[in-house]
């Protein structure tokens, strides 16, 4: 308790004017473009983004309701993200459990290999996956997209799970065995409940990452159009441009909710790693 009070004391002195200005500049720099995206979702000009908009309308929200291609793309993205996240939860948790529990020759190298997909530029992951699928004669499909997304989704889940495992006392599992629980009961009653929030946060981040992924998807998709690809194609077409903006607003809403939830669920634990990509 005393140490927390000390931290508060140290944080109390007010920030200088320069620091404040810098912070506000950074906030605007990051968020102003998003405001413009929202603004142009309501413009009456359908060919270019002129400023100020010649007029405001909500008719693009009506237009998008009848654009089946948009809803197909949205559904495909949600479905890919869902399946990739499930795969990542299973494989990422198992990988974390193995790396936590066993030490073996080359463990550091394996850790690096697991983390590599998120460290490498997406374009490298994309090209190598495409080359690998070609070599193996795997036709590009829904499942090649899922596999491509799973590569980096696993990392997010793995990072969260292993951080939580490292933080929990190894004696906890021994205590459970000591009290009569076998390995399966220990996993169910002790390990899993302790991992739950970390897995939830990791899963949500994985979902959000997969949902707006475009680079790896470009290389691993066949005829499928995920939402980011749809938007990219839509943007270069001359008509109904604001529809893209309306789609962007919908996407923002969809990705924002899980990220916010993940933040609130894990903010006391301070070990959510790998949230950037």
């Amino acid at each position: 308790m005393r140490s927390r009070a000390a931290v508060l004391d140290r944080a109390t002195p007010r920030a200088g004017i320069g620091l404040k200005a810098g912070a506000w500049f950074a906030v605007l720099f990051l968020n102003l473009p998003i405001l413009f995206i929202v603004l142009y979702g309501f413009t009456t000009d359908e060919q270019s983004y002129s400023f100020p908009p010649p007029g405001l309308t909500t008719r693009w929200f009506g237009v998008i309701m009848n654009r089946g291609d948009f809803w197909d793309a949205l559904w495909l993205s949600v479905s890919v993200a869902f399946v990739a996240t499930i795969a990542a939860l299973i494989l990422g948790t198992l990988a974390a459990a193995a790396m936590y529990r066993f030490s073996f020759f080359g463990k550091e190298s394996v850790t690096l290999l697991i983390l590599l997909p998120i460290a490498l530029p997406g374009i490298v992951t994309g090209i190598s996956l495409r080359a690998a699928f070609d070599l193996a004669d795997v036709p590009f499909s829904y499942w090649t997209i899922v596999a491509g997304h799973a590569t980096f989704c696993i990392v997010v889940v793995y990072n969260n799970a292993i951080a939580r495992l490292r933080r929990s006392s190894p004696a906890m599992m021994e205590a459970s065995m000591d009290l009569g629980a076998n390995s399966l009961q220990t996993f169910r009653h002790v390990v899993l409940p302790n991992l739950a929030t970390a897995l939830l946060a990791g899963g949500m981040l994985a979902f959000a990452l997969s949902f707006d992924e475009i680079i790896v998807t470009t290389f691993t998709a066949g005829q499928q159009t995920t939402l980011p690809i749809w938007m990219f194609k839509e943007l270069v077409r001359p008509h109904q441009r604001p529809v893209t903006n309306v789609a962007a607003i919908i996407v923002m809403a969809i990705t924002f909710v899980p990220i916010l939830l993940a933040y609130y669920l894990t903010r006391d634990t301070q070990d959510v790693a790998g949230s950037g990509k």
Partner: protein
Amino acid sequence: MPQPSIAVSFRAVSRHYGAVRAVDEVSFDILDGEFFAMLGPSGSGKTTCLRLIAGFEQPTAGLVAIHGRDMAGVPPYDRDVNTVFQDYALFPHMSVRENVAYGLMIRKVPAAERAKRAEEMLAMVKLADFGARKPSQLSGGQRQRVALARALVNRPSVLLLDEPLGALDLKLREQMQVELKAIQRQVGITFIYVTHDQGEALSMSDRVAVFNQGRIEQIAAPAELYEKPRTEFVAGFVGISNLLQGEAARAATGAARACSIRPEKIHLAPAGAAAPGSAMRVEGEVESLLYLGANTRFDIRLPGGGYLAVVQQNRDAHYAPEQGSKVTLWWDARHLMTFGG
């Protein structure tokens, strides 16, 4: 009186990690209902012995038996022992009540009985009102009690305690020693208590095993351990030892054999004072002194080059030398402890 049965027995048990002999051919028996301490510095093998009993380790060689049954290959969850862990190892996602009832839940004890026994146990460790809290909302001493209740609720025949008081402050530690002893008398089961604190071992135990480098130096009741240590190591680890060797030993006792004398057995007198006929006597000079309230500790330099610590009760206004004073030390010859050949 019927012979008490043996709760735990070790027969030539070794546990090696590569070239390191954590436990090296150790044999002993622990009796039913005994408070048995394993005392030793860190790395002496005492915790490994505890883990061998709990089943977290398997012996490299030798036999570990609990109530006469060979424990080779028996996993921790099939042993009739429970452990109080050093860092308590409470389950952070469960309430105190759920923590205590965990072992009963796993053993499929009906919910009503489970709740009743958990409450009884919490009452015994004086935490009756804390059942709904999470471990993170408890103090160190309270967590320690929860860990104790969680182990005892299963009514094991042997309770293992791995330095359970190590993380508590001094006052709490002393209070818990009294309570642990009382609880042990109340439940009547075997307590095996690992500690590096000789005070804890002496104050609570029926018998103490002193570990050193994977072997047992001596197993004895506390008083015997203190008054008649069998080796220099035991004399040094239990209490202040005042070990004298070579010339210093010759000056004090007339022989060069290593010997030791407890500081409270030594009398202080002015230089040149006579001592009773049967006493051993040596002259010295006060090098330093520490006033400790109930007693004063003098460090006396001997002519042979050695030092002797003398602890004198501050009960009466008797002889109180100052730093640099020449003094005479004397003690009854039966208090001298000698080791080796």
